[in-house]
Protein backbone atom coordinates (compact mmCIF):
# COMPACT_ATOMS: atom_id res chain seq x y z
CA UNK A 1 0.00 0.00 0.00
CA UNK A 2 1.32 3.45 -0.93
CA UNK A 3 1.31 5.83 2.00
CA UNK A 4 2.90 9.13 2.96
CA UNK A 5 4.59 8.42 6.25
CA UNK A 6 7.43 9.39 8.55
CA UNK A 7 10.44 7.07 8.12
CA UNK A 8 10.41 5.85 11.73
CA UNK A 9 6.69 5.02 11.60
CA UNK A 10 7.20 3.15 8.34
CA UNK A 11 10.06 1.12 9.82
CA UNK A 12 7.92 0.26 12.85
CA UNK A 13 5.03 -0.80 10.59
CA UNK A 14 7.26 -3.08 8.55
CA UNK A 15 8.99 -4.42 11.65
CA UNK A 16 5.63 -5.56 12.95
CA UNK A 17 5.17 -7.51 9.71
CA UNK A 18 8.56 -9.17 10.16
CA UNK A 19 7.11 -10.81 13.29
CA UNK A 20 9.84 -10.25 15.88
CA UNK A 21 9.30 -12.19 19.09
CA UNK A 22 11.42 -10.13 21.47
CA UNK A 23 12.16 -6.41 21.21
CA UNK A 24 14.32 -4.74 23.84
CA UNK A 25 15.21 -1.09 23.44
CA UNK A 26 16.18 2.06 25.25
CA UNK A 27 15.15 5.41 23.77
CA UNK A 28 17.70 7.78 22.25
CA UNK A 29 17.22 10.45 19.56
CA UNK A 30 16.79 10.04 16.65
CA UNK A 31 15.85 6.36 17.06
CA UNK A 32 13.04 7.04 19.53
CA UNK A 33 10.04 7.22 17.19
CA UNK A 34 10.73 3.69 15.94
CA UNK A 35 10.73 1.99 19.33
CA UNK A 36 7.91 4.18 20.69
CA UNK A 37 5.70 3.04 17.86
CA UNK A 38 6.76 -0.58 18.29
CA UNK A 39 6.04 -0.50 22.03
CA UNK A 40 2.51 0.72 21.28
CA UNK A 41 2.01 -2.00 18.70
CA UNK A 42 3.22 -4.70 21.08
CA UNK A 43 1.01 -3.35 23.88
CA UNK A 44 -2.00 -3.49 21.56
CA UNK A 45 -1.18 -7.08 20.66
CA UNK A 46 -0.56 -6.17 17.03
CA UNK A 47 2.69 -8.18 16.83
CA UNK A 48 1.47 -11.61 17.82
CA UNK A 49 3.14 -12.89 20.96
CA UNK A 50 6.04 -10.43 20.74
CA UNK A 51 7.40 -9.15 24.04
CA UNK A 52 8.74 -5.63 24.42
CA UNK A 53 11.27 -5.53 27.24
CA UNK A 54 11.78 -2.13 28.85
CA UNK A 55 15.42 -2.05 29.86
CA UNK A 56 17.59 0.38 31.81
CA UNK A 57 20.22 0.91 29.14
CA UNK A 58 21.38 0.02 25.66
CA UNK A 59 23.83 -2.44 27.15
CA UNK A 60 20.88 -4.22 28.76
CA UNK A 61 18.83 -4.01 25.56
CA UNK A 62 21.32 -5.96 23.51
CA UNK A 63 22.17 -8.31 26.38
CA UNK A 64 18.49 -9.23 26.70
CA UNK A 65 18.37 -9.90 22.96
CA UNK A 66 21.47 -12.09 23.09
CA UNK A 67 19.66 -14.30 25.60
CA UNK A 68 16.39 -14.19 23.67
CA UNK A 69 18.06 -14.95 20.35
CA UNK A 70 20.00 -17.86 21.84
CA UNK A 71 16.72 -19.30 23.06
CA UNK A 72 15.29 -19.21 19.55
CA UNK A 73 13.42 -15.90 19.29
CA UNK A 74 13.51 -13.49 16.36
CA UNK A 75 14.91 -10.36 17.98
CA UNK A 76 15.13 -6.66 17.23
CA UNK A 77 16.41 -3.42 18.71
CA UNK A 78 17.29 0.08 17.55
CA UNK A 79 19.71 2.69 18.79
CA UNK A 80 21.88 5.67 17.88
CA UNK A 81 25.15 7.36 18.75
CA UNK A 82 26.27 6.99 22.40
CA UNK A 83 23.57 4.35 22.76
CA UNK A 84 25.42 2.12 20.32
CA UNK A 85 28.73 2.82 22.02
CA UNK A 86 27.23 2.02 25.40
CA UNK A 87 26.23 -1.42 24.11
CA UNK A 88 29.60 -1.96 22.40
CA UNK A 89 30.65 -5.00 24.43
CA UNK A 90 27.38 -6.74 23.68
CA UNK A 91 27.65 -5.76 19.99
CA UNK A 92 30.87 -7.78 19.72
CA UNK A 93 29.32 -10.61 21.71
CA UNK A 94 26.22 -10.89 19.52
CA UNK A 95 28.44 -11.22 16.45
CA UNK A 96 30.99 -13.50 18.08
CA UNK A 97 28.24 -15.83 19.22
CA UNK A 98 26.67 -15.79 15.75
CA UNK A 99 23.22 -14.59 16.82
CA UNK A 100 21.00 -13.22 14.04
CA UNK A 101 19.80 -10.05 15.80
CA UNK A 102 18.59 -7.17 13.63
CA UNK A 103 19.27 -3.64 14.84
CA UNK A 104 18.36 -0.32 13.27
CA UNK A 105 20.98 2.37 13.64
CA UNK A 106 19.39 5.79 13.28
CA UNK A 107 22.78 7.25 12.44
CA UNK A 108 23.86 10.15 14.63
CA UNK A 109 27.13 11.89 15.48
CA UNK A 110 29.10 10.84 18.54
CA UNK A 111 30.07 13.41 21.17
CA UNK A 112 31.83 15.32 22.52
CA UNK A 113 30.80 17.91 21.59
CA UNK A 114 27.33 16.55 22.17
CA UNK A 115 25.34 16.62 18.95
CA UNK A 116 22.09 14.86 18.20
CA UNK A 117 22.20 15.23 14.42
CA UNK A 118 23.12 12.86 11.64
CA UNK A 119 26.45 11.54 10.54
CA UNK A 120 27.92 8.01 10.35
CA UNK A 121 30.34 8.15 13.31
CA UNK A 122 28.29 5.75 15.45
CA UNK A 123 28.02 2.74 13.15
CA UNK A 124 31.56 3.42 11.88
CA UNK A 125 32.89 3.03 15.40
CA UNK A 126 31.61 -0.56 15.39
CA UNK A 127 32.19 -1.41 11.74
CA UNK A 128 34.59 -4.22 12.59
CA UNK A 129 32.53 -5.82 15.37
CA UNK A 130 31.34 -8.59 13.05
CA UNK A 131 27.87 -7.27 12.18
CA UNK A 132 26.74 -6.90 8.60
CA UNK A 133 26.05 -3.19 7.93
CA UNK A 134 23.50 -2.15 5.33
CA UNK A 135 22.83 1.53 4.47
CA UNK A 136 19.52 2.96 3.25
CA UNK A 137 19.29 5.68 0.60
CA UNK A 138 15.65 6.59 1.29
CA UNK A 139 12.79 5.41 3.47
CA UNK A 140 11.51 2.90 0.92
CA UNK A 141 14.91 1.26 0.97
CA UNK A 142 15.05 1.49 4.78
CA UNK A 143 11.89 -0.59 5.16
CA UNK A 144 12.89 -3.01 2.41
CA UNK A 145 16.30 -3.51 4.02
CA UNK A 146 14.66 -4.52 7.29
CA UNK A 147 12.76 -7.32 5.57
CA UNK A 148 15.95 -8.44 3.83
CA UNK A 149 17.99 -8.05 7.03
CA UNK A 150 16.04 -10.69 8.96
CA UNK A 151 16.34 -13.16 6.10
CA UNK A 152 20.05 -12.45 5.66
CA UNK A 153 20.82 -12.56 9.39
CA UNK A 154 18.97 -15.83 9.88
CA UNK A 155 20.39 -17.45 6.74
CA UNK A 156 23.94 -16.79 7.98
CA UNK A 157 23.29 -16.74 11.73
CA UNK A 158 25.01 -13.37 11.83
CA UNK A 159 23.66 -10.07 13.20
CA UNK A 160 22.74 -7.22 10.85
CA UNK A 161 22.62 -3.46 11.36
CA UNK A 162 20.29 -1.49 9.11
CA UNK A 163 21.73 2.02 9.06
CA UNK A 164 19.43 4.91 8.17
CA UNK A 165 20.33 8.55 8.50
CA UNK A 166 18.95 10.04 11.69
CA UNK A 167 16.43 12.86 11.16
CA UNK A 168 17.22 13.02 7.42
CA UNK A 169 15.36 9.72 7.00
CA UNK A 170 13.94 8.78 10.40
CA UNK A 171 12.04 12.07 10.70
CA UNK A 172 11.31 12.61 7.02
CA UNK A 173 7.80 12.11 5.72
CA UNK A 174 7.83 10.68 2.21
CA UNK A 175 5.84 8.22 0.12
CA UNK A 176 6.53 4.53 0.78
CA UNK A 177 5.01 1.29 -0.39
CA UNK A 178 4.30 -0.85 2.67
CA UNK A 179 3.89 -4.50 1.70
CA UNK A 180 1.24 -6.37 3.64
CA UNK A 181 2.01 -9.08 6.21
CA UNK A 182 1.22 -12.00 3.90
CA UNK A 183 3.61 -10.65 1.29
CA UNK A 184 6.37 -10.27 3.88
CA UNK A 185 5.65 -13.78 5.22
CA UNK A 186 6.11 -15.25 1.76
CA UNK A 187 9.59 -13.70 1.52
CA UNK A 188 10.65 -14.11 5.13
CA UNK A 189 10.14 -17.65 6.47
CA UNK A 190 9.87 -18.29 10.23
CA UNK A 191 13.16 -18.28 12.11
CA UNK A 192 14.98 -21.64 12.25
CA UNK A 193 17.87 -21.25 14.71
CA UNK A 194 21.18 -22.96 13.98
CA UNK A 195 21.96 -22.97 17.69
CA UNK A 196 19.41 -23.13 20.47
CA UNK A 197 19.33 -23.16 24.26
CA UNK A 198 16.80 -25.97 24.61
CA UNK A 199 16.29 -27.84 27.93
CA UNK A 200 15.34 -30.96 25.94
CA UNK A 201 18.54 -30.90 23.93
CA UNK A 202 21.01 -28.99 26.09
CA UNK A 203 24.04 -27.17 24.67
CA UNK A 204 26.16 -24.38 26.05
CA UNK A 205 26.82 -21.23 24.05
CA UNK A 206 29.71 -18.88 24.76
CA UNK A 207 32.72 -21.09 25.45
CA UNK A 208 36.00 -19.56 26.45
CA UNK A 209 38.37 -20.07 23.53
CA UNK A 210 42.13 -19.88 23.99
CA UNK A 211 45.03 -19.24 21.62
CA UNK A 212 44.72 -22.70 20.09
CA UNK A 213 41.31 -22.07 18.50
CA UNK A 214 40.46 -18.33 18.70
CA UNK A 215 41.79 -17.55 15.22
CA UNK A 216 39.76 -20.41 13.74
CA UNK A 217 36.52 -19.14 15.30
CA UNK A 218 37.29 -15.60 14.05
CA UNK A 219 38.18 -16.93 10.60
CA UNK A 220 34.78 -18.60 10.38
CA UNK A 221 33.13 -15.26 11.22
CA UNK A 222 35.11 -13.73 8.35
CA UNK A 223 34.03 -16.64 6.16
CA UNK A 224 30.37 -15.90 6.98
CA UNK A 225 30.87 -12.32 5.85
CA UNK A 226 32.41 -13.50 2.60
CA UNK A 227 29.36 -15.74 2.12
CA UNK A 228 27.19 -12.67 2.68
CA UNK A 229 28.82 -11.08 -0.39
CA UNK A 230 27.34 -13.93 -2.47
CA UNK A 231 24.08 -14.16 -0.59
CA UNK A 232 23.11 -10.46 -0.61
CA UNK A 233 22.79 -10.25 -4.43
CA UNK A 234 20.71 -13.45 -4.37
CA UNK A 235 18.43 -12.09 -1.66
CA UNK A 236 17.98 -8.75 -3.40
CA UNK A 237 17.15 -10.53 -6.64
CA UNK A 238 14.60 -12.68 -4.84
CA UNK A 239 13.27 -9.50 -3.22
CA UNK A 240 12.85 -7.85 -6.61
CA UNK A 241 11.00 -10.86 -8.01
CA UNK A 242 8.73 -10.91 -4.99
CA UNK A 243 8.09 -7.20 -4.36
CA UNK A 244 8.69 -5.89 -7.92
CA UNK A 245 11.24 -3.25 -7.00
CA UNK A 246 15.00 -3.06 -6.67
CA UNK A 247 16.15 -2.41 -3.13
CA UNK A 248 19.38 -3.02 -1.30
CA UNK A 249 22.32 -4.87 -2.79
CA UNK A 250 26.07 -4.56 -2.40
CA UNK A 251 26.57 -1.43 -4.48
CA UNK A 252 24.47 0.28 -7.11
CA UNK A 253 25.75 2.40 -9.98
CA UNK A 254 23.95 5.51 -11.23
CA UNK A 255 24.82 6.96 -14.66
CA UNK A 256 28.18 5.25 -14.67
CA UNK A 257 28.04 4.65 -18.45
CA UNK A 258 30.99 6.54 -19.89
CA UNK A 259 31.72 8.10 -16.53
CA UNK A 260 35.19 9.46 -16.02
CA UNK A 261 34.59 10.41 -12.39
CA UNK A 262 32.81 8.23 -9.85
CA UNK A 263 31.35 9.73 -6.68
CA UNK A 264 31.01 7.07 -4.01
CA UNK A 265 28.85 7.51 -0.89
CA UNK A 266 26.51 5.74 1.52
CA UNK A 267 23.06 6.56 2.83
CA UNK A 268 20.68 9.40 2.11
CA UNK A 269 23.23 11.77 0.56
CA UNK A 270 23.11 9.53 -2.52
CA UNK A 271 19.79 11.21 -3.42
CA UNK A 272 21.37 14.64 -3.43
CA UNK A 273 24.40 13.32 -5.33
CA UNK A 274 22.14 11.82 -8.03
CA UNK A 275 20.60 15.26 -8.60
CA UNK A 276 24.10 16.74 -8.85
CA UNK A 277 25.18 14.01 -11.30
CA UNK A 278 22.18 14.80 -13.53
CA UNK A 279 23.03 18.48 -13.49
CA UNK A 280 26.70 17.94 -14.30
CA UNK A 281 25.85 15.46 -17.03
CA UNK A 282 23.67 18.15 -18.61
CA UNK A 283 26.82 20.28 -18.64
CA UNK A 284 28.67 17.37 -20.35
CA UNK A 285 30.79 16.54 -17.31
CA UNK A 286 31.15 12.74 -17.40
CA UNK A 287 30.36 11.93 -13.78
CA UNK A 288 28.42 9.05 -12.24
CA UNK A 289 27.85 7.81 -8.74
CA UNK A 290 28.00 4.52 -6.86
CA UNK A 291 25.99 3.80 -3.77
CA UNK A 292 27.61 1.46 -1.30
CA UNK A 293 24.58 -0.35 0.09
CA UNK A 294 26.52 -2.92 2.10
CA UNK A 295 29.48 -1.52 4.00
CA UNK A 296 30.33 -4.62 6.04
CA UNK A 297 31.29 -6.91 4.45
CA UNK A 298 32.91 -4.48 2.02
CA UNK A 299 32.05 -5.42 -1.59
CA UNK A 300 35.51 -5.00 -3.10
CA UNK A 301 35.08 -7.22 -6.15
CA UNK A 302 31.79 -5.67 -7.18
CA UNK A 303 33.09 -2.15 -6.60
CA UNK A 304 36.28 -2.83 -8.53
CA UNK A 305 34.16 -3.99 -11.45
CA UNK A 306 32.02 -0.86 -11.35
CA UNK A 307 35.11 1.36 -11.28
CA UNK A 308 36.61 -0.13 -14.47
CA UNK A 309 37.39 2.69 -16.88
CA UNK A 310 37.02 5.45 -14.29
CA UNK A 311 39.98 7.79 -13.99
CA UNK A 312 39.05 9.61 -10.77
CA UNK A 313 37.17 8.62 -7.63
CA UNK A 314 35.61 10.92 -5.04
CA UNK A 315 34.45 9.37 -1.78
CA UNK A 316 31.95 11.51 0.10
CA UNK A 317 31.71 10.31 3.67
CA UNK A 318 29.90 11.41 6.81
CA UNK A 319 32.59 10.38 9.23
CA UNK A 320 36.16 11.21 10.17
CA UNK A 321 39.02 9.04 11.31
CA UNK A 322 40.75 11.68 13.42
CA UNK A 323 44.41 11.82 12.46
CA UNK A 324 43.83 9.89 9.25
CA UNK A 325 40.94 11.31 7.21
CA UNK A 326 38.44 9.07 5.47
CA UNK A 327 37.27 5.64 6.56
CA UNK A 328 35.29 4.52 3.51
CA UNK A 329 38.06 6.05 1.37
CA UNK A 330 40.57 3.66 2.90
CA UNK A 331 38.42 0.70 1.85
CA UNK A 332 38.03 2.18 -1.63
CA UNK A 333 41.78 2.70 -1.91
CA UNK A 334 42.35 -0.91 -0.94
CA UNK A 335 39.78 -1.91 -3.56
CA UNK A 336 41.75 0.03 -6.18
CA UNK A 337 45.20 -1.11 -5.12
CA UNK A 338 47.39 -1.57 -8.16
CA UNK A 339 45.44 1.03 -10.16
CA UNK A 340 47.05 4.45 -10.32
CA UNK A 341 44.01 6.71 -10.10
CA UNK A 342 43.35 9.49 -7.59
CA UNK A 343 40.91 8.73 -4.77
CA UNK A 344 39.74 11.96 -3.12
CA UNK A 345 38.36 11.93 0.39
CA UNK A 346 35.54 14.40 1.04
CA UNK A 347 34.36 14.69 4.63
CA UNK A 348 30.84 16.09 4.59
CA UNK A 349 27.73 16.42 6.67
CA UNK A 350 29.41 15.99 10.06
CA UNK A 351 27.08 16.56 12.98
CA UNK A 352 24.10 17.09 10.69
CA UNK A 353 25.45 19.86 8.46
CA UNK A 354 23.32 19.98 5.36
CA UNK A 355 25.14 18.78 2.24
CA UNK A 356 24.05 21.18 -0.47
CA UNK A 357 23.91 20.47 -4.18
CA UNK A 358 25.89 23.65 -4.88
CA UNK A 359 28.76 22.65 -2.57
CA UNK A 360 28.88 19.15 -4.05
CA UNK A 361 28.90 20.53 -7.59
CA UNK A 362 31.69 22.94 -6.82
CA UNK A 363 33.69 20.23 -5.07
CA UNK A 364 33.49 17.94 -8.12
CA UNK A 365 34.63 20.75 -10.39
CA UNK A 366 37.56 21.47 -8.05
CA UNK A 367 38.48 17.78 -7.94
CA UNK A 368 38.64 17.65 -11.75
CA UNK A 369 40.99 20.61 -11.68
CA UNK A 370 43.20 18.88 -9.08
CA UNK A 371 42.47 21.63 -6.59
CA UNK A 372 41.17 19.58 -3.63
CA UNK A 373 43.21 19.39 -0.46
CA UNK A 374 43.34 15.89 1.05
CA UNK A 375 41.21 15.13 2.90
CA UNK A 376 38.79 17.81 1.78
CA UNK A 377 36.29 19.09 4.35
CA UNK A 378 33.16 20.29 2.54
CA UNK A 379 32.00 23.79 3.59
CA UNK A 380 34.57 24.09 6.36
CA UNK A 381 34.67 27.59 7.86
CA UNK A 382 38.40 28.20 7.63
CA UNK A 383 38.27 31.71 9.10
CA UNK A 384 36.90 30.40 12.36
CA UNK A 385 39.50 27.62 12.44
CA UNK A 386 42.38 30.01 11.85
CA UNK A 387 41.10 32.41 14.52
CA UNK A 388 40.82 29.62 17.04
CA UNK A 389 44.23 28.18 16.18
CA UNK A 390 45.81 31.60 16.58
CA UNK A 391 44.07 32.14 19.87
CA UNK A 392 45.30 28.80 21.17
CA UNK A 393 48.83 29.62 20.12
CA UNK A 394 48.76 32.88 22.04
CA UNK A 395 46.97 31.86 25.23
CA UNK A 396 47.98 28.88 27.35
CA UNK A 397 44.71 28.71 29.25
CA UNK A 398 42.65 28.99 26.08
CA UNK A 399 39.67 27.12 27.49
CA UNK A 400 37.28 24.72 25.79
CA UNK A 401 37.27 24.66 21.97
CA UNK A 402 33.55 24.09 21.41
CA UNK A 403 32.44 27.01 23.58
CA UNK A 404 34.87 29.40 21.91
CA UNK A 405 33.91 28.34 18.40
CA UNK A 406 30.23 28.86 19.22
CA UNK A 407 31.00 32.31 20.62
CA UNK A 408 33.06 33.25 17.55
CA UNK A 409 30.35 32.11 15.17
CA UNK A 410 27.60 33.57 17.35
CA UNK A 411 25.52 30.47 16.76
CA UNK A 412 22.30 30.81 18.66
CA UNK A 413 19.16 28.78 18.16
CA UNK A 414 18.26 28.23 14.54
CA UNK A 415 20.35 29.28 11.60
CA UNK A 416 19.07 28.89 8.10
CA UNK A 417 21.99 27.38 6.24
Amino acid at each position, binding site marked *: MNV*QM*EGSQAVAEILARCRPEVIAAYPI*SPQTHIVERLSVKVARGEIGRCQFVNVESEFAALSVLIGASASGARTYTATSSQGLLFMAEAVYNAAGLGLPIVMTIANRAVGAPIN*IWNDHSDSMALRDAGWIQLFAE*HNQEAIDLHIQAFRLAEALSCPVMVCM*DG*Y*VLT*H*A*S*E*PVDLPDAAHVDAYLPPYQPVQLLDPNDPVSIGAMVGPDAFAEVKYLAHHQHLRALDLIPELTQAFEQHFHRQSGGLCSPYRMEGADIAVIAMG*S*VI*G*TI*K*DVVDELRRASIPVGCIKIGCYRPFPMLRLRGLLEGVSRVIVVEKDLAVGVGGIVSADVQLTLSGRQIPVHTVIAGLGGR*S*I*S*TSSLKQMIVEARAERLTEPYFLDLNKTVIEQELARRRDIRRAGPVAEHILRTMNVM*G*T*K*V*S
Partner: protein
Amino acid sequence: MWQVRFHGRGGQGVVTAAELLALAAFRDGKYAQAFPSFGSERMGAPVMAFCRIDDTTIRTRDTVTCPDVVIVQDATLLHQVDLFAGLTPCGFVLINSTRSLNVLHLEEFLSILPVGHVCAFPASDLGLKYLKRPLANAPLLGGFAALTGLIRLASVESAIRQRFPGEIGEANVASVREAYDHVTTLTAEQQGILRR
Protein backbone atom coordinates in the same frame (compact mmCIF):
# COMPACT_ATOMS: atom_id res chain seq x y z
CA MET B 1 9.56 21.67 -7.56
CA TRP B 2 8.02 23.76 -4.81
CA GLN B 3 9.98 24.28 -1.63
CA VAL B 4 8.32 25.47 1.56
CA ARG B 5 10.02 26.58 4.77
CA PHE B 6 8.12 26.79 8.04
CA HIS B 7 9.37 28.92 10.91
CA GLY B 8 7.99 28.71 14.41
CA ARG B 9 8.85 27.82 17.95
CA GLY B 10 9.11 24.43 19.64
CA GLY B 11 5.67 23.24 20.71
CA GLN B 12 3.69 25.13 18.05
CA GLY B 13 3.31 22.15 15.72
CA VAL B 14 5.74 23.38 13.07
CA VAL B 15 6.91 19.87 12.20
CA THR B 16 3.32 18.60 12.15
CA ALA B 17 2.39 21.42 9.76
CA ALA B 18 5.11 20.38 7.32
CA GLU B 19 4.04 16.73 7.56
CA LEU B 20 0.39 17.63 7.02
CA LEU B 21 1.29 19.68 3.96
CA ALA B 22 3.24 16.72 2.57
CA LEU B 23 0.30 14.43 3.28
CA ALA B 24 -2.11 16.85 1.57
CA ALA B 25 0.17 17.02 -1.48
CA PHE B 26 0.37 13.20 -1.51
CA ARG B 27 -3.43 13.11 -1.51
CA ASP B 28 -3.35 15.46 -4.48
CA GLY B 29 -1.31 12.82 -6.32
CA LYS B 30 1.98 14.67 -5.96
CA TYR B 31 5.33 13.59 -4.55
CA ALA B 32 6.18 15.23 -1.25
CA GLN B 33 8.97 15.24 1.29
CA ALA B 34 8.72 16.87 4.72
CA PHE B 35 11.43 17.02 7.34
CA PRO B 36 12.32 19.03 10.42
CA SER B 37 15.43 20.89 11.37
CA PHE B 38 15.48 20.55 15.11
CA GLY B 39 17.62 22.52 17.44
CA SER B 40 17.84 20.80 20.77
CA GLU B 41 14.20 20.08 21.43
CA ARG B 42 12.94 22.84 23.72
CA MET B 43 9.57 24.50 24.02
CA GLY B 44 9.83 28.01 22.64
CA ALA B 45 13.14 27.65 20.80
CA PRO B 46 13.15 28.68 17.13
CA VAL B 47 12.33 25.67 14.95
CA MET B 48 12.20 25.12 11.21
CA ALA B 49 10.58 22.47 9.09
CA PHE B 50 10.64 21.96 5.36
CA CYS B 51 8.38 20.56 2.68
CA ARG B 52 9.13 19.87 -0.95
CA ILE B 53 6.38 19.14 -3.47
CA ASP B 54 6.96 17.92 -7.02
CA ASP B 55 5.45 15.90 -9.84
CA THR B 56 8.29 13.37 -9.72
CA THR B 57 10.25 11.55 -7.01
CA ILE B 58 12.20 13.91 -4.76
CA ARG B 59 15.75 12.76 -4.16
CA THR B 60 17.60 15.73 -2.73
CA ARG B 61 18.02 15.89 1.06
CA ASP B 62 19.61 19.27 1.63
CA THR B 63 17.76 21.83 3.72
CA VAL B 64 15.59 24.33 1.88
CA THR B 65 17.74 27.43 1.42
CA CYS B 66 15.79 28.98 -1.50
CA PRO B 67 12.14 28.55 -0.52
CA ASP B 68 9.23 29.37 -2.80
CA VAL B 69 7.05 29.80 0.26
CA VAL B 70 7.88 30.94 3.78
CA ILE B 71 5.33 30.33 6.50
CA VAL B 72 5.85 32.19 9.78
CA GLN B 73 3.93 30.61 12.61
CA ASP B 74 5.23 32.97 15.27
CA ALA B 75 5.57 36.68 14.51
CA THR B 76 7.94 37.19 17.45
CA LEU B 77 10.57 35.57 15.21
CA LEU B 78 10.38 38.54 12.82
CA HIS B 79 13.60 40.55 12.98
CA GLN B 80 15.10 37.79 15.20
CA VAL B 81 15.72 34.99 12.72
CA ASP B 82 16.58 35.52 9.04
CA LEU B 83 13.13 34.29 8.03
CA PHE B 84 13.16 35.32 4.39
CA ALA B 85 16.71 34.24 3.51
CA GLY B 86 16.87 32.90 -0.03
CA LEU B 87 13.17 33.49 -0.78
CA THR B 88 12.64 33.23 -4.54
CA PRO B 89 11.65 36.46 -6.37
CA CYS B 90 8.15 35.18 -7.14
CA GLY B 91 7.79 33.55 -3.72
CA PHE B 92 4.95 33.63 -1.22
CA VAL B 93 4.95 34.67 2.43
CA LEU B 94 2.31 33.77 4.99
CA ILE B 95 2.53 35.24 8.48
CA ASN B 96 0.51 34.45 11.57
CA SER B 97 -0.18 37.85 13.11
CA THR B 98 -3.03 40.04 14.26
CA ARG B 99 -1.06 42.98 12.91
CA SER B 100 -0.90 44.19 9.36
CA LEU B 101 2.29 44.00 7.28
CA ASN B 102 2.61 47.75 7.69
CA VAL B 103 2.59 47.54 11.48
CA LEU B 104 5.01 44.62 11.32
CA HIS B 105 7.41 46.89 9.32
CA LEU B 106 7.45 44.39 6.48
CA GLU B 107 5.45 46.18 3.81
CA GLU B 108 8.41 47.81 2.10
CA PHE B 109 10.66 44.79 2.56
CA LEU B 110 8.19 42.38 0.99
CA SER B 111 6.96 44.77 -1.70
CA ILE B 112 9.44 43.17 -4.10
CA LEU B 113 7.16 40.11 -4.21
CA PRO B 114 4.23 40.02 -6.64
CA VAL B 115 0.95 41.48 -5.42
CA GLY B 116 -1.17 38.91 -3.68
CA HIS B 117 1.82 36.82 -2.66
CA VAL B 118 2.09 38.11 0.89
CA CYS B 119 -0.47 37.72 3.62
CA ALA B 120 -0.62 38.25 7.37
CA PHE B 121 -3.66 36.96 9.20
CA PRO B 122 -4.49 36.00 12.80
CA ALA B 123 -4.16 32.22 12.50
CA SER B 124 -3.70 31.77 16.27
CA ASP B 125 -7.08 33.43 16.84
CA LEU B 126 -8.68 30.79 14.62
CA GLY B 127 -6.97 28.12 16.68
CA LEU B 128 -8.39 29.69 19.84
CA LYS B 129 -11.83 29.94 18.30
CA TYR B 130 -12.08 26.34 17.17
CA LEU B 131 -9.58 24.44 19.34
CA LYS B 132 -9.50 26.62 22.48
CA ARG B 133 -5.73 26.73 22.00
CA PRO B 134 -3.70 29.28 20.03
CA LEU B 135 -2.57 26.69 17.49
CA ALA B 136 -1.86 28.35 14.18
CA ASN B 137 -0.51 25.47 12.14
CA ALA B 138 -3.74 24.08 10.66
CA PRO B 139 -5.22 27.50 9.82
CA LEU B 140 -1.94 28.42 8.12
CA LEU B 141 -2.30 25.38 5.87
CA GLY B 142 -5.75 26.62 4.89
CA GLY B 143 -4.13 29.99 4.22
CA PHE B 144 -1.40 28.25 2.21
CA ALA B 145 -3.97 26.54 -0.03
CA ALA B 146 -5.75 29.86 -0.63
CA LEU B 147 -2.59 31.92 -1.17
CA THR B 148 -0.68 29.57 -3.48
CA GLY B 149 -3.34 27.34 -5.05
CA LEU B 150 -0.70 24.62 -4.89
CA ILE B 151 -2.84 22.13 -2.98
CA ARG B 152 -6.57 21.66 -2.79
CA LEU B 153 -8.46 22.66 0.34
CA ALA B 154 -10.12 19.22 0.32
CA SER B 155 -6.71 17.55 0.47
CA VAL B 156 -5.68 19.63 3.47
CA GLU B 157 -8.92 18.64 5.16
CA SER B 158 -8.51 14.94 4.48
CA ALA B 159 -4.85 15.04 5.59
CA ILE B 160 -5.95 16.56 8.91
CA ARG B 161 -8.73 14.01 9.34
CA GLN B 162 -6.30 11.16 8.68
CA ARG B 163 -3.78 12.45 11.21
CA PHE B 164 -6.33 13.59 13.82
CA PRO B 165 -9.49 11.51 13.53
CA GLY B 166 -12.59 12.58 15.45
CA GLU B 167 -13.47 15.83 17.18
CA ILE B 168 -10.02 17.41 17.15
CA GLY B 169 -9.71 16.78 13.43
CA GLU B 170 -13.12 18.31 12.74
CA ALA B 171 -12.31 21.40 14.83
CA ASN B 172 -9.04 21.76 12.90
CA VAL B 173 -10.88 21.38 9.61
CA ALA B 174 -13.31 24.16 10.62
CA SER B 175 -10.34 26.44 11.39
CA VAL B 176 -8.75 25.56 8.06
CA ARG B 177 -11.91 26.47 6.15
CA GLU B 178 -12.28 29.83 7.83
CA ALA B 179 -8.59 30.54 7.21
CA TYR B 180 -9.00 29.60 3.55
CA ASP B 181 -11.94 31.98 3.10
CA HIS B 182 -10.19 34.71 5.05
CA VAL B 183 -7.00 34.57 2.99
CA THR B 184 -8.94 34.27 -0.28
CA THR B 185 -10.76 37.50 0.59
CA LEU B 186 -7.62 39.28 1.75
CA THR B 187 -5.62 38.50 -1.38
CA ALA B 188 -8.57 39.38 -3.62
CA GLU B 189 -8.77 42.75 -1.84
CA GLN B 190 -5.04 43.33 -2.33
CA GLN B 191 -5.32 42.64 -6.02
CA GLY B 192 -8.53 44.68 -6.26
CA ILE B 193 -6.85 47.67 -4.69
CA LEU B 194 -4.10 47.47 -7.25
CA ARG B 195 -6.59 47.31 -10.12
CA ARG B 196 -8.37 50.44 -8.92
